[in-house]
């Protein structure tokens, strides 16, 4: 039950990349912050819907995943620098390890993240694919 509630709370960020932007210094954070790490108490944070477009900052190929992700193996996990400046860790889908290079442009897609067994809740959210 705890997992269901936690997943439900994360729906805005997982479905629609809702992060935060400090209107004092302009820094964008994802996941969203409660306090601006730069401006501290002077900062004023607002929700921002990130565009879902960015570049691969770095990546790794996962060959030994946990059981939950074995069906995807081998798969690529990248740190992506979004257009707005925030960095985000995500799987890169629909491509092989030879197709990916640092600096490649990527865009957000909506995918199944995991299912809690055959009878549990299914979590959905962002992943990224190479832009055409």
């Amino acid at each position, binding site marked *: 039950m705890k997992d269901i509630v936690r997943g439900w709370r994360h729906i805005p960020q997982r479905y629609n990349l809702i992060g935060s932007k400090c209107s004092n210094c302009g820094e964008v954070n994802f996941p969203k912050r409660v306090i601006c790490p730069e401006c501290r108490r002077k900062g004023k944070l607002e929700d921002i819907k990130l565009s879902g477009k960015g570049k691969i900052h770095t990546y790794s190929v996962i060959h030994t995943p946990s059981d939950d992700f074995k069906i995807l193996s081998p798969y690529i996990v990248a740190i992506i620098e979004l257009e707005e400046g925030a960095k985000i860790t995500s799987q890169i889908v629909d491509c092989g390890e030879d197709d990916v290079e640092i600096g490649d442009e990527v865009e957000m897609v909506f*995918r199944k*993240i995991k299912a809690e067994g055959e009878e549990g809740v*299914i979590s959905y959210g962002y992943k990224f694919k190479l832009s055409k």
Partner: protein
Amino acid sequence: MAGIVGYGIYIPSYRIKVEEIAKIWGDNPAAISRGLVVQEKSVPGPDEDTATISVEASRNAISRAGIDPKKIGAIYVGSESHPYAVKPTATIVADAVDATPNLTAADLEFACKAGTAGMQICMGLVDSGQVEYGLAVGADTAQGAPSDALEYTASAGGAAYLIGKEDTIADIEGTCSYTTDTPDFYRREGKPYPKHGGRFTGEPAYFKHVLSGAKSLFEKMGTEASDYDHAIFHQPNGKFYIRAARKLGFTEEQYKTGLLTPVIGNTYSGATPLGLAAVLDIAQPGDRIMAVSYGSGAGSDAFSITVNDSIEEKRELAPKVQDMVADKHYVDYAVYAKFKGKLRMAGLTED
């Protein structure tokens, strides 16, 4: 009168060829390809299901329409492969397109025609002034039992239609349906694969309903085949589609654009909506389109549609059907079996 304000599509990028499936079961691939008029079909990735396909198609429809998603007052997702037996796919779509919370939403099921049923419901809500925009999605990750004839065609994909009154790219001039209780294809609760009546799915089921639905529409609109520039039909395989089109008096020029099953298979609830999208991708202002869906069980929804001037500008705002048809990579039967959850795995949680 209600019309189409935007449309969006999604087809998974994986494909499997008829030859690859035939090899496993000792079938003759040339005979199957010729008989069904199918060369390959789309396969959903292991992290794709009806919800993810519906969300991608709906986001594309909203991008194309250029409307504020908060103005969507109703979302219906038609599918026979909803991820949950109880818990709507439509709420996942509603939150993912940022249309929540002031809207109504529900899942629909009518074999392969639940997507067009959603379009009709949205038309009613829009025409009666209950909602400004309604979003109707037809999407499936269809299941065919291993070695069954359906395995050669059952594929994945979907399309979403945003229905409204203002700034339409195409107007729906009229719609009508033809429905009877005909158990030609069904899946009982909790069973992984559907059953079908073999040849019974043809004349008394598909052809009776598609042809009757189309003829009812001709009568209602005072039209005939030659009045339309394009025609789309449900396409469980290429053979049924072409035969239905010819029986109604349509020429290859009229029916060829909407026929996608040879290259992506039967996307079930997505099939007629995707065929219509392929036509809207290339249609000229003023073109008239006839679209007739079919859902086993059984019924057909027929639509008469006229294309407006704004199609030319708006169709460039989201991916087109042929872009996604061409964006593909092939998998072999082993990977297909893994992606489709046909392997029994020890203690793992993926379906």
